[in-house]
């Protein structure tokens, strides 16, 4: 009997080997769709764009730059395209943060916004703006644009680190404790932002109101380049973490048993989440629910294996923010609705649906 179990029968062919080839097609297909969506989104807006405007730089190069761009071409190439691409990049960054947060806390309902990471970043930026803006005199002017992003990053890092610590006191796998902690953190950061609002001068107040609702207005090519460089640094590193992060789903103890250095992994994940959230908040204000929706949809499409889910959720995050931003800038043209409203309108009900599904799956308790 003991020998019979060792007899090598026909080995079932696991889907893992075949799947890695299958990833290429959905990934390429989604990229193509995203490109098409970007071009389409760039067509919409208060200023009408024609085919000639799309070809303007090509014509300008052929004519050696003698003809300046017509108004609509300028709007397309200097205002709308940077904004559309920025939406893709910021959406990808937020989705990355969301995927990593969910992997870190081993729960599909974890979201940097709900857990207070994004408001922590906003709160740090608000405090810096109000308290340190006047004291920022000794800084060389080249560094000034970086003060707020760095502050936002520090705020996000602090909150993420605290959450990581607090999560260990709670029941493993329980999302309720984490969400309650996020509730507390959100309350504290809202109070601090309120304090900053109180202390702010009129001019600072105008910038502060920006943090709470989120907006992609004012994005130019330099901002796009900065975000692209940041993502180019973060994304490969995050993809390297995907394989060990898969193991974290087994539980912290089991993950260390299979050979993962768990504390170090958690440290890197916290850093990555803080960087991507901090950057997104610093330049766009608080945009919520993307970190929840994009990984969820990606999981539904390609499964929970992080090696596939991470790139997909970034693509989906970019697409979702592109959609929300296109709506935000076209629905009430020529005025603009803050984009955070749309992500909240979609994300809020979606979260409730996901909560219901999770409760059903875990048999009545979360």
């Amino acid at each position, binding site marked *: 009997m003991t020998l019979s179990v060792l007899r090598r029968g026909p080995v079932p062919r696991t889907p893992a080997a075949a799947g890695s080839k299958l990833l290429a097609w959905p990934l390429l297909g989604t990229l193509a769709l995203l490109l098409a969506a970007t071009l389409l989104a760039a067509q919409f807006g208060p200023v009408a764009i024609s085919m000639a405007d799309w070809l*303007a730089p090509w014509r300008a190069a052929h004519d050696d730059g003698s003809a300046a761009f017509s*108004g609509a071409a300028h*709007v397309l190439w*200097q*205002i709308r395209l940077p904004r559309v691409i920025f939406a893709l990049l910021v959406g990808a960054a937020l989705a990355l943060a969301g995927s990593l947060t969910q992997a870190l806390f081993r729960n599909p309902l974890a979201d940097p916004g709900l857990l207070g990471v994004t408001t922590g970043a906003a709160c740090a930026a608000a405090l810096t703006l109000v308290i340190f803006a006047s004291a920022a005199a000794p800084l060389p002017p080249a560094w000034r644009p970086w003060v707020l992003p760095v502050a936002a990053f520090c705020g996000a890092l602090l909150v993420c680190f605290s959450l990581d610590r607090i999560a260990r006191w709670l029941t493993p796998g329980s999302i309720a404790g984490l969400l309650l902690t996020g509730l507390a953190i959100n309350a504290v950061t809202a109070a601090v932002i309120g304090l900053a609002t109180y202390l702010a001068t009129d001019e600072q107040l*105008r910038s502060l109101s920006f943090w709470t609702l989120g907006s992609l*207005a004012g994005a130019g090519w330099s901002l796009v380049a900065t975000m692209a460089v940041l993502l180019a640094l973060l994304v490969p590193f995050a993809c390297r973490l995907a394989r060990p992060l898969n193991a974290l789903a087994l539980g912290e103890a089991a993950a260390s048993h299979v050979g993962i250095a768990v504390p170090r992994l958690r440290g890197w994940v916290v850093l990555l989440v803080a960087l991507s959230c901090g950057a997104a908040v610093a330049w766009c204000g608080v945009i919520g629910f993307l970190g929840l929706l994009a990984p969820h949809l990606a999981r539904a499409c390609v499964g929970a294996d992080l090696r596939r889910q991470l790139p997909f959720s970034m693509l989906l995050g970019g697409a979702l923010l592109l959609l929300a931003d296109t709506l935000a*800038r076209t629905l009430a043209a020529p005025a*603009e609705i803050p984009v955070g409203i749309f992500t909240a309108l979609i994300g809020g009900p979606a979260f409730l649906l996901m909560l219901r599904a999770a409760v059903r799956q875990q048999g009545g308790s979360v």
Partner: protein
Amino acid sequence: MRGLMPSRRDALALLLGGVSAAALPGWALAAPSQPRIVAAGGAVTEMVYALGAEHLLAAVDVTSLYPEAARKLPSVGYMRTLSAEGVLAMVPTVLLATEDAGPPAVLRQIAAAGVQLAVLPAHNRFDGMLDRLGRIGELVQKPAEAAALAAKLREDWRASEAQVAGHLAQRQQRLGRPLRALFVLSHSVSQVMVAGGETTAQAMLVYGGALNAIQGFNGYKPLTPEAAIAAQPDLILATTQGLEAAGGVPGLLRLPGLAETPAGRAKRVVALEAQFLLGFGPRLPQAVRQLDSAFTEALAGQTAA
């Protein structure tokens, strides 16, 4: 090999085009003979209408409610949260805005598109208003009308100042001290702010011959009952819109602390339309006179609406 050459050249052209797209600003319209103006700010719009240059207006913002005709123009949204594309869709040559307009990044984008950005400093003084009028006169190419209007306003202003001085002297005799007023800004029942120093509201109070009862801070801060009572205002000033939002005079006086002030006990509440009162536009002399009359009436024992 030969088939590859054109495509490589095209790709290079596109790359160069992309680079030059990033480098060139450039906003060339079929050179307009007349300026097209987008006005952001109620006072700015008023001044344009006062100079008779309303035919140059392409769009206004949502705070431009006077005169009535301005409400029919296309709107570019709230002046503090402008949209670059929204403004550029109006194909303007000039964006006339006060210092309050924003966000700064959007203003930079609009300027980069070749639109002339005329940001008028917001001095809460009559002279500042005249300076703005002069600047707008230049921009709409009506300097003569601007000078004439400025002269007329100066005369008007002297009349207002005289009226205020007269009533001030009377009040000094009667009360023995200056009139203390409190400006209350209420967006909603739960959010009530009072005006401190360096605000438009305080400037108007002073022009109207009163003193700001609340001292010690600048800008708009939330109302605290103790501070309101300690300030002992004789009179409460509000905007008509704010008064409506608070639920009329009874509603306003139900706010914590206000009912216990001398103003609250005597139900002395004065309200003027927001743009008229705080706009610092060409109706400024008129506004000061109306404010002063309202103060006098209120003190004479009648509750002003």
